[in-house]
């Protein structure tokens, strides 16, 4: 049984059909990649799953429970975490306090077996411990991305949705990030990641889904998807 099941998901903003009936499953322990051109609906897909937007139609099922239209905090407490395309933090608070707050609202999931229960353990994992007392707002971009990951993990997700975690990072930072994400399935956390960086996606994701104009046009093993003529057409042979 898939961990997350998305059926016929539609989201319309006025005249814009951001999602036009998307079906998608994410299996337990999987790292699924979602790619597609700008404006193809990737972020909207996350936003609808995580409760930021209400879907126009369709359903989201999580471990057999209907999650459609639940508010963001309820989705998070049910075990679906996410990071934002726009790196976010609580800017006026220290790095440690940012993560501490994120550890305090997980709804007692995985009490016994979660690998990072304290803020310090999370900061160690993402490598931000030296900055624990820094104010989060002025941090460099790469550190903010890592802080976002630490905070999302602090909420003890069983599925983590990462929206362009590599955007704005240099090659070294991207590689470090990929190293962290790869460890997540081993800790019982499935991952769904959006990114435009195909090198990163190839390295991370055994399976890829492609969105175009709110429609899923391909879904399968990464190599096969990237060789699919429909996908090649969308990318005009350029970005791949």
């Amino acid at each position, binding site marked *: 049984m898939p961990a997350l099941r998305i059926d016929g998901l539609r989201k319309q903003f006025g005249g814009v059909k951001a999602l036009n009936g998307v079906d998608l499953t994410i299996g337990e322990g999987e790292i699924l990649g979602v790619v597609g051109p700008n404006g193809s609906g990737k972020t909207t897909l996350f936003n609808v799953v995580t409760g930021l937007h209400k879907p126009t139609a369709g359903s989201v099922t999580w471990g057999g429970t209907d999650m459609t239209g639940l508010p963001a905090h309820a989705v998070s407490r049910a075990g679906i975490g996410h990071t934002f395309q726009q790196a976010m*933090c609580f800017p006026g608070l220290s790095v440690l306090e940012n993560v501490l707050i994120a550890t305090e609202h997980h709804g007692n999931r995985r009490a016994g077996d979660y690998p990072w229960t304290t803020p310090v353990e999370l900061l160690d994992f993402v490598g931000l411990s030296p900055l624990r007392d820094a104010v989060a707002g002025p941090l460099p971009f790469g550190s903010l991305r890592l802080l976002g990951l630490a905070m999302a993990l602090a909420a003890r997700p069983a599925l983590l949705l990462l929206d362009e975690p590599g955007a704005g990072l240099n090659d070294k930072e991207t590689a470090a990030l990929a190293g962290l994400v790869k460890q997540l399935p081993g800790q019982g956390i499935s991952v769904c990641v959006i990114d435009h960086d195909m090198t990163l996606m190839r390295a991370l994701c055994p399976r890829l889904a492609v969105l175009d104009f709110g429609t899923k046009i391909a879904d399968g093993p990464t190599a096969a998807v990237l060789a699919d003529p429909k996908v090649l057409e969308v990318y005009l042979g350029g970005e791949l």
Partner: protein
Amino acid sequence: MMFHETTNVLGRPSAALGAILVLVAVLAFVPEAGVSSRIISLAITAAINVVVLYGLSVLFGQTGILSLGHAALVGVGAYTAAILARDFGIGFWGALPIAAVLSGLLAIVVGFPSLRVSGHHFVILTFALGQLFTIFLTNGGAFTGGATGLDLQLPTSVLGLPLDSLAAFYRLSLLFVALAAVAAWGVANSRYGRTLRAVRENEKLAGSIGISVGRQKVGAFAVSGLFAGVSGVLMAYFLRHIAPNQFASFPSIYLALMLMIGGARLLFGPLAGGILVSFLPEIFNLDPVESRILYGVCLIAVILLLPQGVVGGLAELWQRLTATRHANPAAVAPHTISEA
């Protein structure tokens, strides 16, 4: 340079609370120094305001929601005290919890629209709800005493002993200032306070880590309402006569002004703001119109120059003066994750 809530001077949270409690204890001896009863009365008014301000510091300082309707919540407390005394013979101490709860409940009503509207629109809405309350009081007939308001005859007593001197009531008010400061400090330095700051700093991110943003906002209103209710009871027992215009728009604006001038995020802010604004007209010998102008000028100056209020401004100045001792003081917040 950015100023942060956790600073070197006031960085140790318990230090700030300790300093405030010592200050309040010292202030309790002011009547011994032969100060005029006019000044003591002003000080009582200031103290009563400081109690609401500590509640507003939770709402505005911690949660980031500005309300221009809190005088109405003080009014609920005051009218509750007067009506309980009149109809049930319930005195000061009995009125306190009932008034606090009723003000807290009305605060929830005032706070509810914050789930739908935010920013300036919401501020205007709180203002309108405050106005609505005075209209209700004015038209409440014999129950609220209409435009003339209500008298309160019961004495204030502690353990059966009447508190009939001004000095005694002054000390009682100081006791509530101390309690309010302790309560606000407790909120700021708890998991609950952290949750509120998360909502203040980034609602979307707060939701994504499992915080129910709407519930926290309305809850912060309720908490600030408790303070307002207590303040209202004090006010009713101090003034002995209450009327709708005391809880209308201007008192609400004064409260916001005091909070802005003192600074909402530091524990000293409400105390400093309440005292400064209450005593400014006295110090400069201003008539009511002049003092309104002065308040306006002060508010603009504070918003432009001291976004963290006078206390925050002083703390920042201190930080700059001692900055040589730290490589980059702005980038470092003490890991005592507190507001001091």
